[in-house]
């Protein structure tokens, strides 16, 4: 049973004049799968490495099961880590790679044998145990790296972008395998990625970071549907949310560049209550909340724009329409049956009840 808590964690590298991780606070429940996500350089890997003990914590407390861990040596933290490049030892066989940590800890040979065999069984590596990592495919190497973590029976798994070296198909497959593994082992896992899809699909909770700070912590659903600021809204989701710098006047948001749509009653009330009448704000709308079907156009008649399709991508079930109304560019994700060729003039309805509104200066959410 291990709860992990990070309290006001800061990291500043020697010689830098600013912090790489700023006031990081997080409680991780036992058995939870937490994903740190964010653009490169946001401090997610640094935070992970501080938890592992590979980086010193400049300020703040790291606790595991209530015990302060700041000064505990990495090897005594009972942590297993999977590295982005797997860090397999090329001169050792798969078996020896997985057994290395156990041998170092002087575990009896029979126990080592059993643990490695069990892990190999789980990961489908049994027939590769005598091979060297060089003779394995990318996916198999990834599994060995996971196996090395499993045999250790650690209280916490740290995974640092473990799938980024795999091809797209394998990545999807390994994503599921890691999720299954987590269910099976029921250990805490902290997973670092810059890929929001990985974060969305695997996490119990996502911690989204930018410029060293936590932006939001929540379930994938929270982050997607109730982003606390423009950064979170823009980072989660692919293609990204459309943003417009607009002005609210007379119940209508318009950006003066060809976009002008009415805000539905309920949403408008919140905006007015918060004093945004006749003020600038940022409107965000997800591509899937822009529609071209007849029904939608009729239902949202006061939020229809005249758009020209510039690029269209056919994706099988959906198609992406990169469009322009006046000088305003946006993307709409519509049903593939509503495919439109580039150059076509299309009427599109903005489902403003699902729009997100952000403050122009602070970029914090006004209303989701």
């Amino acid at each position, binding site marked *: 049973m291990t709860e992990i808590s990070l309290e006001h964690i800061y990291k500043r590298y020697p010689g830098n004049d600013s912090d790489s991780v700023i006031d990081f606070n997080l409680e991780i429940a036992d058995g939870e799968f937490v994903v740190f996500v964010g653009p490169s350089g946001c401090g997610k890997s640094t935070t992970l490495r501080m938890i592992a003990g590979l980086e010193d914590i400049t300020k703040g407390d790291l606790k595991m099961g209530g015990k302060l861990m700041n000064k505990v040596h990495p*090897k005594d933290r009972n942590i297993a880590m999977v590295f*982005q490049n797997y*860090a397999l*030892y090329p001169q050792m066989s798969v078996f020896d790679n997985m057994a*290395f940590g156990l041998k170092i800890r002087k575990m009896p040979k029979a126990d080592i044998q059993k643990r490695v065999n069990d892990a190999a069984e789980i990961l489908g590596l049994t027939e590769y145990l005598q091979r060297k990592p060089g003779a394995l495919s990318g996916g198999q190497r990834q599994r060995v790296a996971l196996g090395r973590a499993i045999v250790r029976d650690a209280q916490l798994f740290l995974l640092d972008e473990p799938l980024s070296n795999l091809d797209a198909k394998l990545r999807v497959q390994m994503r599921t395998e890691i999720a299954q593994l987590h269910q099976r082992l029921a250990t805490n896992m902290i997973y670092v990625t810059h890929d929001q899809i990985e974060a969305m699909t695997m996490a119990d909770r996502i911690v989204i970071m930018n410029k060293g700070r936590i932006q939001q912590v929540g379930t994938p659903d929270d982050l997607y549907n109730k982003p606390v600021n423009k950064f979170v809204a823009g980072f989660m989701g692919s293609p990204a949310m459309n943003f417009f710098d607009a002005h609210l006047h007379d119940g209508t948001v318009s950006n003066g560049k060809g976009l002008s749509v009415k805000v539905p009653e309920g949403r408008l009330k919140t905006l007015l209550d918060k004093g945004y009448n006749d003020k600038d704000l940022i409107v965000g709308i997800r591509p899937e909340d822009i529609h071209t079907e007849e029904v939608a156009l009729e239902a949202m008649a006061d939020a229809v724009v005249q758009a020209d399709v510039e690029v269209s991508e056919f994706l099988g079930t959906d198609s992406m329409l990169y469009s322009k109304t006046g000088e305003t560019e946006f993307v709409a994700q519509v049903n593939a049956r509503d495919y439109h060729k580039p150059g076509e003039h299309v009427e599109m309805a903005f489902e403003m009840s699902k729009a997100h509104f952000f403050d122009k200066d602070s970029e914090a959410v006004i209303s989701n």
Partner: protein
Amino acid sequence: MKKTSKLVIALVSFLLGLLWIFPFYLILTNSFKTPKGIFASVLSLPSPATGDNYVNSFKALDFLRSLGNSLIITVVGVVLIIVFSAMAAYALQRNHSKISGGILMLFVSAMLIPFQTVMIPLTANFGRVHMLNMWGLIFMYIGFQSSLSIFLYQGTIASIPVSMDESAELEGANRLQTFFKIIFPMLTPITTTVGILNIIALWNDYLLPSLVLPQNQYTIPLQMFFFFGQYTKQWHLALAGLALSILPVIIFYAFAQRYIIKGVTDGAVK
């Protein structure tokens, strides 16, 4: 066109090969001749051929002892050079401080100092602490040879991701275990290169041993001058001795050929 150029290359290679092998031909044929036979015709094949030169030379040179001396100095020296410079390079490479950068620069720039400028004070100082013997010599070799070796090692270590070390550390390995179980085995190609370069340097060295070693610890290259007096040169014995001295190198090469070629080419492209 292609065919003729190939032919020219083959011909030139063949001639170069002949040129290369010619000294060996001279040593080998003349080592079987009597002194008279040598002066009669240097180039001709030995007639009558005699193996006596080898027996006499072997005895006169105390060949087994000088072979033993050479082996001890080379093997102990090279092993220590490899271990120390690999460890030093690892420490210097992984430790990103100004001091380690400075130390590395010091090692690299030490390669530029000609040996001849330090040899007299060095032997004088070693004499003062009674280390003018083969152990003192090995000690000096570690100093002289580690610059290049550390330089070669640290380049390769830089290409090994730090996550290897970190992974081992998380698994519970200490610094020494990480180095000897994880990093050092990954350095095998460059270790071969470093090993060969040092074996060649130490085995063939003449000047430093001639300054340092007492007569009973003479290595093969030193012992070879036994037959060259100020007034007499016993070519027949000297050549037999030379042929003997080449023998261990040829045996070594036959066994290590695969690694030597790999080591040398690895070193070339890295």
